[in-house]
């Protein structure tokens, strides 16, 4: 499983450009705020259309401006964990987890809830969750959608030290036990050095 990304996109006055070719494991996109890290994730996920470039994941071409390929978001099977969790406010935790669930997935809802330590939250509403809990539910929701790869955008933002540690352990277990390739965005060097096998500076 590999990522082959070379994308370019003008956003206002700046141009976000990024190119890398990496294998599996956890790869960090590292750089200061405003460097366009999130935009790169959005382009890999299909939420933002590059002006030019190519996105190939695991040998499958998801976007190629020269070849006219643009696989729609729904078909890319990106497990995207957003910085702001983005849980659906009108659905309970269980329904959020089940939203994109596929029968042939990596794990069942109960297994995912156990793995992430959120089994006791299944009947709660998203607005009643703490930041760390919401992030873990968000990770679970992405995992259950049977993704081919994970995109994580600063999943530790807004968490206190103890909660950060909880989520960091979950991410390490994901990296080591589940084996999905992860593209991980952060501006925190210590975090990136602890988690990432490859670091791409932006």
């Amino acid at each position, binding site marked *: 499983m590999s990522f082959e990304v070379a994308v370019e996109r003008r956003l206002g006055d700046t141009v976000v450009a990024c190119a890398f070719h990496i294998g599996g494991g956890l790869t960090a996109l590292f750089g200061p705020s405003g460097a366009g890290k999130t935009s790169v994730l959005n382009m890999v996920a299909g939420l933002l259309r590059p002006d030019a470039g190519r996105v190939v994941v695991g040998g499958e071409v998801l976007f190629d401006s020269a070849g006219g390929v643009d696989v729609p978001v729904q078909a890319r099977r990106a497990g995207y964990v957003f910085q*702001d969790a983005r849980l659906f406010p*009108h659905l309970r935790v269980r329904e959020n987890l089940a939203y*994109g669930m596929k029968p042939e997935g990596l794990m069942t809802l109960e297994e995912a809830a156990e793995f992430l330590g959120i089994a006791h939250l299944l009947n709660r509403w998203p607005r009643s969750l703490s930041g760390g809990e919401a992030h873990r539910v968000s990770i679970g929701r992405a995992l259950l959608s049977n993704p081919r790869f994970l995109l994580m955008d600063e999943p530790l933002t807004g968490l206190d030290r103890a909660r950060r540690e909880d989520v960091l352990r979950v991410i390490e277990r994901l990296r080591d036990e589940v084996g999905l390739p992860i593209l991980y965005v952060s501006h925190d060097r210590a975090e990136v050095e602890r988690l990432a096998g490859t670091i791409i500076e932006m």
Partner: protein
Amino acid sequence: MIEPDVWGIVWLSLKVSAVAVGVCLPLAFALAWALARGRFAGKVLLDAVVHLPLVLPPVVTGWLLLLAFGPQGPAGRWLEATLGVTFMFRWTGAALAAAVMALPLMVRAMRLSIEAVDLRLEAAAMTLGASRWRVFRTITLPLALPGVVAGAVLGFARSLGEFGATITFVSNIPGETQTLPLAIYSALQVPGGEAVVTRLAVISVLLSLAALVVSEVMARRMGRGSHVL
């Protein structure tokens, strides 16, 4: 004076308003969607046309309806020929007038609620594999629903009170087009009609108040649901 059939008048008013809102609802939602999400030439003009009945003298709206949907009007002739629907001096005409007058209020409420739906949640649903239709059904519509209901209730209340366009378009015929406001107007013309006026007016106030309370409760619920954390 002859005692009018108060409950008949109330029933007719409710029927006219319910049909007006029911027919208007899909159109109002489609317009609200286009105005909230669409990017097309003439959007400002469409917005203005939808809101026109709100600022036009209702008599003018009624007269325009007469021109369009009367027996000689192009829309009236076409509807009579294809669907066999006539509006002149019928309760259906009263419903049409009420619908046109309620449309701007309904579109406004629905548009605001559609605009309040967080596009980032829709993007999240798409990354989870949901088609555009599923995103609409399971995310956008449920989150906008309180506003849609509030719009429908407001439209219903506005329809109950419709007077000017109705009396101009379909006249004031007891049992057919004489809704609550028109009955109150008629009773005021008759010596000794004050008792009837009072009864009809009290009913009007209670119905309108109930509609506004329901609408307000819906609007509050909408405010609460749209935050994630």
